[in-house]
């Protein structure tokens, strides 16, 4: 028994402390980056697009000669949007594949779940799929969040709608999770500035498919401005129900579902759908330039899957690569994190310039309002 105890004590003492990893993932020829996101099924709509963006940034940097003669290589792990798999995948990327930096931590719930593993290791990490306050408040030294919170997006959207459609009856349909709560909070903040007349409110359970009773409530309360707080399938269902019931309120949605596939699935009824986003639409000048770049480095099938997540993924990965580049002489985590903080703002043309000045770990990107066009299944800026 004493032998066992001795072994136990030895094992506890020998447990490695996780610090001495500061320049892992770097060989003479390459620098290894890793990311985790859903790559299959409906959540793959965003994960795959994000992965394309990150790969685009990597391909572009490699075409320009890489970093100090080293080529960048990106490993992507699929977590299928399941928290436990995100944690396992992140552990694998950090401790088994030994990547130098992480370019995505999957969606918001997954990122929160994996945060403690990432924080303990100290690896530089970019998060751009689900930017929620829990990820940057309080700021973690090595975790950088690119984008804008749903709360602020909702607030701006509400202010815009209140100005464009004054004195209307509003309806709000939200999801029963932190996403829905963030939107509710944004709406509350907007009500500090403008008076809103919310006639109908509903919170649906996730995975709900049939929105008949909610939209009947919208019809019954004669709602004229509807906040559709679904993600993908839910918004499709809500807009199609509105079409069936013959009501045509102004419908506003959010960036998580701002992908062409949603407009295509809704059909003609998607015309005029409003959305809010911190990423430029594909039809803007920046978007067109981005597509050209994508055509250069990606296959045609891949270009067809480009959407807003490609742009945000590209922007955050390019920001990270610029920071690594600034550390050519001293390829360590500490230098990269320092460079992310001090580098000049990164302008990719598809988002407002990204910077983490002043110790902030959040890019706080400004949002704009977009309108959908059903014929081309695309969005354009509203001003």
């Amino acid at each position, binding site marked *: 028994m004493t032998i066992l105890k001795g*072994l136990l004590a030895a094992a*506890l003492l*020998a447990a490695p402390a996780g610090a001495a990893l500061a320049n892992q993932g770097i060989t003479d020829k390459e620098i290894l980056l890793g990311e985790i996101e859903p790559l299959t099924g409906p959540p793959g709509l965003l994960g795959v697009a994000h992965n394309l963006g990150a790969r685009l940034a990597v391909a572009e940097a490699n075409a320009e000669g890489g970093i100090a003669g080293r080529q960048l290589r990106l490993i992507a792990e699929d977590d*299928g949007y399941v*928290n436990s798999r995100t944690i396992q995948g992140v552990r694998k990327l950090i*401790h088994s594949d030994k990547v130098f930096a992480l370019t995505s931590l999957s969606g918001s719930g997954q990122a929160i779940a994996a945060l403690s593993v990432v924080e303990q290791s100290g690896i530089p990490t970019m998060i751009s799929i689900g930017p929620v306050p829990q990820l940057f408040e309080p700021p973690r030294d090595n975790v950088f969040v690119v984008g804008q919170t749903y709360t602020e997006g909702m607030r701006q959207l509400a202010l815009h709608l209140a100005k464009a459609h004054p004195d209307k009856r509003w309806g709000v349909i939200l999801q029963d*999770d932190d996403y829905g709560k963030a939107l509710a909070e944004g709406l509350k903040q907007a009500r500090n500035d403008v008076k809103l007349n919310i006639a109908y409110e509903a919170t649906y359970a996730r995975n709900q498919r049939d929105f008949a009773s909610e939209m009947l409530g919208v019809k019954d309360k004669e709602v004229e401005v509807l906040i559709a707080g679904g993600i993908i399938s839910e918004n499709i269902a809500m807009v199609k129900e509105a079409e069936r019931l013959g009501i045509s309120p102004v419908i506003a949605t959010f960036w998580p579902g701002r992908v062409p596939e949603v407009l295509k699935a809704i059909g003609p009824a998607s015309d005029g759908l409003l959305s809010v986003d911190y990423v430029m639409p594909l039809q803007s000048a920046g978007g067109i330039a981005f597509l050209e770049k994508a055509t250069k480095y990606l296959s045609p099938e891949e270009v067809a899957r480009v959407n807003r997540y490609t742009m945000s993924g590209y922007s955050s990965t390019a920001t990270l690569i610029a920071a690594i580049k600034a550390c050519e002489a001293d390829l360590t985590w500490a230098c990269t994190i320092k460079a992310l903080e001090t580098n000049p703002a990164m302008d990719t043309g598809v988002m407002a310039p990204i910077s983490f000045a002043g110790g902030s770990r959040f890019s706080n990107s400004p949002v704009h309002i977009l309108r959908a066009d059903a014929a081309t299944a695309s969005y354009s800026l509203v001003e």
Partner: protein
Amino acid sequence: MRSGFFKETIVEHIHLTDSRLQRAWILIGLAVLLTAPLWLNFYGLSLVTLMMITAIGAIGLNILTGWTGLISLGQTAFMVLGAYAYAISTETWGWPPLLGFALAGIVPMLASVLIGIPSLRLTGLYLAITTLASSFIVNHLVLEFDGLTNGSSGIFVNRPVIFGYAFNSDASLFYLVAGFGILAILLSLNLRRSRVGRAFFAIRDNDNAARVMGINLSAWKIYAFMVSSFVVGICGALYGIFLSFVTVDGFPFLLSIEALAILIVGGIGSIAGAVLGAIFLVGLPELLGMVFSFFGPEVQSLLATSAHEVKGVLYGLIIIFFLRLQPHGLMGLWSDLKRAWTIWPLRY
């Protein structure tokens, strides 16, 4: 030549170990397990930890499904209850972790009484149906009572501090889980050889005969359900600590199916089978990853984008494969091998 291993008295039959050789093997196994943090890397260690947590859940379900013959699709629900009971009591109310673990077992146990009373009066598939329903209802209740559960935002769970020792490192968490795993195995081994375990077996094998022997069917079924839920609740709490974060999203319904699949793959009704099944099914994605990497980068990159789906298909195929060709699971395979080894070169 040894032709088999025979037990002649009931005392021999209920002994936990039956030979020196077996005790030696158990000691070697324990030594390998306890020194694992010395020779495993971070990733391997967390994989083994996950395997042990899953095995605890499978051992719990085995009491209900393997021994008493009742199907439960509510593994997820009891894990959620256990995880939240632990998280709320230790994080929100500041209870000591050991009390938290006790509550993590007791809350699912009480829930199982509530669910069990209407469904266990009946024979057949009714428990599967009510437990399926309960896993959706539990998720809804967790989201509804957000004052207590923090709703969809979830609760962060710190690593426990027990008797002044903080289980902060991955290695210490490994030992904590291993400790619970050994406890679960001992509990269920001792249950199996007691009057209680024999009553469960009697109900599974022939409920009418069991009733004739004086076993109150609905009461004993509920006892089985309670014990099972207690262990599954502890598994949920450990899983919450492992994830360091408890939300309903962390416990997808697939876990219920996975737990049943583990029992089938391992060999239903056997404790060692539950452990083997957990090792096999949790390790399967890693194994597949290795197999894929043999085919070179092309196949690997082709499969990288749909690895999850390929795994899903194989996962389902393995369940069906075992049910059809090896219904006694890995344990059945093992005993076939053992017999073949003993009586070789004869065939039977």
